């Protein structure tokens, strides 16, 4: 009998705490598989955020540090400067990276810090119960924008990939989605390339992953993926913004 599929050894056996239909689990899998396939699992030090993926340190089968809210890129900087030959990544949500931690991610990119950042954008604060995020869409109802987000009151949703791509030290920036098997395959390709960007010493790399939050969006898992496709992708276009291999 041959094994055709098994759980990546890049993940521990700890059961994930994520809600049914949440796509964090898929993204964890892609990160874990990418580390294993690139042969860097034993060299990896990950930095977990504050938010839904706060417990990521229990799930990745590599050394992990838990950072204060938004500070993961600063913590990762301290690790990478100490261990320049190791592989260092951060895994952060939209509250963590796009709100309280904007200074840290912008300056890590600006320094060309040789770290890889996985940025999970689900347009809402999940762990705290569905409050408005900087990435919440116009009109989207949350527990702190009960009538729907307006431009007048809160501004437009922040486009992190486009912003980071303006920074010279960022050598790989791509926005992907995990709403379909085809997009999941593309997401993995981008994550692997972001990791290679670090391994080849090019500079900072960020992959923004559009992710579903059925619980706080108030949809079934399937409907949540439809909502992501119909509402998030038009505002947050998928694609590459910077690629060290193509001189982009």
């Amino acid at each position: 009998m041959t094994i055709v599929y098994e759980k990546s050894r890049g993940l521990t056996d700890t059961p994930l705490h994520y809600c049914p239909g949440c796509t964090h689990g898929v993204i964890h899998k892609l990160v874990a598989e990418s580390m294993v396939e690139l042969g860097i699992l034993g060299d990896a030090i990950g930095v977990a955020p504050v938010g839904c993926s706060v417990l990521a340190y229990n799930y990745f089968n590599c050394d992990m540090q838990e950072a204060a809210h938004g500070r993961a890129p600063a913590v990762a900087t301290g690790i990478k400067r100490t261990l320049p030959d190791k592989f260092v990544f951060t895994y952060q949500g939209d509250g963590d990276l796009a709100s309280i931690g904007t200074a840290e991610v912008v300056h890590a990119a600006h320094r060309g810090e040789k770290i890889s950042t996985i940025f999970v954008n689900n347009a809402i604060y999940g762990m705290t119960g569905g409050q408005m995020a900087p990435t919440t869409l116009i009109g989207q109802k949350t527990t702190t924008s009960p009538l729907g987000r307006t431009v007048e009151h809160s501004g437009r949703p922040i486009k992190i990939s486009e912003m980071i791509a303006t920074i010279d030290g960022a050598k790989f920036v791509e926005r992907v989605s995990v709403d379909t098997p085809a997009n999941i395959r593309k997401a993995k390709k981008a994550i692997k390339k972001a990791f290679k960007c670090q391994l080849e010493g090019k500079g900072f790399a960020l992959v923004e992953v559009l992710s579903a939050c059925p619980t706080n969006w108030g949809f079934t898992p399937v409907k949540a993926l439809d909502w992501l496709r119909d509402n998030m992708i038009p505002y947050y276009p998928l694609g590459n913004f910077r690629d060290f291999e193509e001189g982009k």
Partner: protein
Amino acid sequence: MSKVLMKGNEAVGAAAIEAGCKFFFGYPITPSSEIPEYMSKALPEAGGVFLQAESEIAAINMVYGAAGAGARAMTASSSPGISLKQEGITYAAGAELPCVIVNMMRGGPGLGSIQPSQSDYFQSTRGGGNGDYRTLCYAPASVQEIVDYVMLAFDKADYYRNPVLICADGMIGQMMEAVEFKEPAHIDLPPKDWTTIGTAEKRKPNIINSLYLEAEVLQDHNRDIDKKYKLMEENEVLYEAYGLEDADVVLVSFGTTSRIVKTAMKQAEKKGIKTGIIRPITIWPFPYDVFKNIGNKAKGVLTVEMNLGQMIDDVKIGVSGKLPVYFNGTQGGVVPTPASILEDIEKIAGGTK
């Protein structure tokens, strides 16, 4: 090694490098900017890394990452900058990460002034950040003590796996004195088998973390780290004290202020008033026990601080109601004069204060 003339802030850097510090993450602020300036040149020459962070918050979190990766790492700042670092300090305490944080205190609250102050005593000795934790706090009174206690701080941080603070003030940071770099007494340090340096897929992952979602588990963690604090209280108290047995007036003061107090004590002696002094070198843990050595002649205890009266709370605990405790304070960056202290000594000795 022969003596060299050094500015206090430069001595911080030189002592840290001597103690094996290889990573400095910082942000400029008066009156401690000479520390990152010194480190930006000297640390790369010593095979280390200096990095100017985008903020005080980023700097302390870089220290967190480096400490978790097994490095001897530090940051330095002055009062408003140290306030910003409190988040990182409590996380480091919770995650049990060794690191050294230097505070060249200046006047506050808020942006305050750039002159010397001791008004971060509460912040330093009571935690500063959220949660139940303690940090060893050395309060040097000379550039030589900066050298001695910065060097010791790295060993103590590693020994206890806990942040250690150096609580000096702008005056000590800016003054120049002759210093000698002496090898500190050897301390057997525990192996750093908890660091995140990559598993090489040969061991289970190490996790640096301060989150414990179950109340009982966090309580156990709180009680475990409290054992370290109890050990520090038992073994790490440092102070200078003399003249307590036959003193008419006992003075209590730390850091820069204690030097001015000693001048006033000499002037009091010429007037026939006997004084003694307790100078805490560790402001946490505080030398409560030494107050038992105050003799029966004493009429009162005078606490001299550059703040509105913060250490005086600890002095009152030490005195335990046996004597009146008086306060002489300057604020905002104003340095006390020997004359004002002498005046208070005379009043206490003469029973008019």
